[in-house]
């Protein structure tokens, strides 16, 4: 009975289950608030009976390098383990991507994934169509490398 709806600030209090399981990085309160205020259209939650079972936190890249096009970035995406394999991550991702393309005219979306996280890698590559663009050495706090992945949003441009 999942509904996907835009994330609100107060959802922060309901997101702990997702974060306990899946969020190894430390994002500060400020960081969340900044996302919520700056790109309210890009972050969504999956809610089931009032319980938050998944969310996507996304933003637009603020320092676009010269020659690069405006693009979105997925800061964090998480689905409660017992709600996996139901297509929730995909639905969250698509909602966010549509808004990136239509509201902010993003031409592509990027994200980082742990090299060892094969399940996530499979999701991004096989289900969502991302491709690996680069490897960033020691991207994570614990020293692990990250794959930098991206997906074109040109087909969504209106």
């Amino acid at each position, binding site marked *: 009975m*999942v*509904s996907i709806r*835009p994330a*609100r600030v107060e959802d922060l209090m309901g997101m702990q289950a997702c974060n*306990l399981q899946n969020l190894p990085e430390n994002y500060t309160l400020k960081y969340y608030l900044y996302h919520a205020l700056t790109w*309210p259209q890009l972050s969504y939650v999956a809610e089931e009976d009032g319980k938050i079972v998944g969310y996507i936190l996304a933003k637009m890249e603020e320092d676009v390098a010269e020659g690069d096009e405006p693009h979105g970035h997925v800061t964090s995406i998480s689905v409660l383990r017992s709600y996996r394999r139901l*297509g929730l991550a995909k639905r969250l991702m698509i909602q966010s991507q549509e808004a990136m393309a239509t509201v902010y005219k993003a031409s592509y979306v990027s994200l980082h994934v742990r090299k060892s996280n094969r*399940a996530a890698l499979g999701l991004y590559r096989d289900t969502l169509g991302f491709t690996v663009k680069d490897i960033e050495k020691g991207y994570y706090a614990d020293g692990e490398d990250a794959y930098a992945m991206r997906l074109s949003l040109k087909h969504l441009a209106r």
Partner: protein
Amino acid sequence: MDRQIRPIYEALDTGSNKSAILACNKVLKKQPNNLLVKALKALALVRSQKVEEALLLCDEVLASKPADDPTLTAMMHVLRGLGRHMDMVTMYEDAYKQHPGNEELGTQTFFANVRIGNWKAAQQIATKMHKQFQDDHYLYWSVMSALLQAHDPTTPEALRTVLLKLAHRLVSSSATPSFYHADRFHLHVTVLKELGLYDEAYEMVESETGKIVCSSNLACDELRREIWKLKGLTEEAGERAERRILEAKDRNWLEFATVLDATFAGLLSEGSDAETAKAAVGERIVKTRELFGKVVEEDGVKDRSGHLALLELERRARQHGLATDSAALNSLLESYFQSFGGKACCYEDLKPYINLEGDDLARWTAVLEKQTASYTSVPDLWRYINAQKLLRYNLSAAALTPETESQRAAQYLDAYLEGLKLGKDLPVYELQPADDLAILSAQAFVHVWKQTSDEAFLYNAAALLEYAVARSKMSYQIRLHLVRIYRLLGAPSLALEHYRSINVKQVQNDTLSHFILSRASTFSLSSIGDLTYTSECLEASRIYLSNSEETAEFIVRAFGSEKYSQIRDFIMFEDRLDNSLQRDLVKMEHVRMRIAHEPINSELVDMELIELKFIFDRVHHDNRDFDILANYQPRSVTPFNQQTQFLEKTPGLGWLWVFLKIYIKAFQLASDLDDTVEDKLLIGDRPKPSYDPETKMPLNERLAMRKQEEIDELTPDESLFYDYASTLSQWLTPYHDYTRPPPSAVLAEAAKITEQKTGHPLKGLEIPPNAATNGHARKDEEPPAVVEPPELVTKYFDDMSKRFKEVLEGKGLPHELLHVVTLTQEAFLLFVIETTRFKAPSVIKANKLGALAQHIKEIRARASGVLSDISNSLISYAEREATAERRREIVQACKPIIHESGLDHDFVLNVAKKITDARKQIVDGVGKGMVRVCKTHA
């Protein structure tokens, strides 16, 4: 000039406050009246915690009414650091008055009011700015401010409509229509909605432009849905949702729920007769069933929505007596289990629909029982796990004897161990697919413990969960279970270890710290100088500081960037954290730990008194998450969360209120600060006055109020402690009131100390010349006659000594024993707090209270005697705990779970050792701490 100032800024930016102060002094030597440098020095002083000196400079700068931007900015940081937001408002208002044409100063004045939630002033400033600078966004600021004032709990009911009408008038006067800007549009429609002008609001959202705005802005679209609902357009919304489902293939549950509401809407409409309405709804049900059936056909097992919608339709039809086929629900359940039994969410999905009875239940149970264990693939394993959970949910009381439950626990565990093989190659950060079987087993064991009070079953649960968590390191669920069980078993260091492994972050501290910090003073060793739990309290409370420092700034930024649709969210969020119940429950625990560790002097007493009084005026929000703890107990049994509560009582608002009353009263007696003194010495703003009418009553009346619903949240021992504390303070009040030095003397003393510290006299104080002579001004009245101490006080410690023996001999669990013991120690400390004033012989002599001193001495001796007896028993209890024999007993108790390999004898022995060591540590420490506390306060 710039050359001199730059190094100051650089030092401040890099956090070298010392060199910033030096650099300031250098400039001030030559230009003693340089306001900016004074302000910067004040900032550096605030940041180096030199509050007194900073205050002095701060007041000097404020007095000269600065109006230049750099000084104002520096002062904004100084005032924020000192918590003086009201002064910030005044400062900007003064500056704006001096330069009424300065738009930036106007904006800052507006923001200063936003920060403290002063919406009335904010609205007036914004209106003024709109007139003066003719920019539309000021108009919308004033609309938003009026709306917020209307919603402020302190705004009287009658004024609310007036304010909403004002907002309406303002928003209608805008030169440019609101739809050019989605957030302005949102604000406009919101104002109409709140005034109940649904037709107008509907016209706006359904207009050509409105539709465009809503289609690209989700906040506006949500508002549109709400307007439809408020206009009673359930049917129309249903049709729209139906199209979304069929044409756009939208599978959002919101759409399905809308269709369901529309299907049954006919039953709610008044006027038509009930039978006709029922018949009509019956027909609608058939149609809706067809629609959902089509979705199921299209989606197959790719999406659950259609399947769940059919179940929900059937449930509602049954509820209204409109079900036509009595077997339909069962068929749907079976088909759902068939299609999604291999998904982890199946149990949660079906739970709302399986409260079955009689034949329905028998048929459903038979289906589930056919599901045999299979370990060939993860979905197969999950299908078995779901069947077990679903079966367990409906177990009747008769099927839940300790024997059958023990058998089930063993059966779940065997399946778990078998299921582990399926996940043996998973990377360490993955969870084992079989985890929930271990949790099921542990919950069954805990249930048997509840039934039999035999702690052996808790050891079984703990040992098997330890085994499981070693294989699923990231399982917060298993760790939370262990936290609960270890607290019951009196092994707080192990509980804390697991809690810390969960790596609770940010806002989670507010929602989850109750797991470890609820009644944490029971498990604290602060009395022997071990501050582990004390610092955990501080750590968990950091989020509240970040909130008060940061969230208000985001509200300001939301105004700045005109994100009106989000402002109320931010305000609510800030309020929920700022006035969080958990925040103050932790604070209370911290105070209870602190008094066992620190010297009890005026510094501690005065500071805590002021803080606790602030808390006593708050209106709290309970943000604690208890639902996160999985519950797989049958519906006929209390949930796991309740089963594992500390002595079956979870502290809530009532509990907090009782402890606040106890401690405010105690500190009030001990303190020399009365309200007039407190006002003069307080730095920073008082919190906003609460809108709870009770807070308007005199403090002493509030403190004396005893409410049954509050007492109901206490354990019997806490309730006794409350009686003791109230009686004690009642008895001692007249002597304190007589002995306490007059306010003038207290202020004179404070002034003296400030002058010693800073070299300057305390500002704004006029000390009457006769007050400064000495602390004991001569009294005109005779001292109050000393009466015998009440029995509740004199007998308390003996009663607690009996309670202690009772629990010890009755084989209560260690947490209960520690509860009794720590409360007894706390009663002693409370006694110390309330009698320290009468320790000095000079005070006794001057006030002729010799008889009182004698009573105090006797009670103290009695209390010390009891504490040292208990201490001795605890220390020898701890000795017995950490022995090979005790470990053997535990291993013996865990026989049901010990296997040949893996979860074997050695593993369990190791867990037993950890538990007994942890228990020895806490019991021994608390025992030794009691002696130390007695000695310190002899």
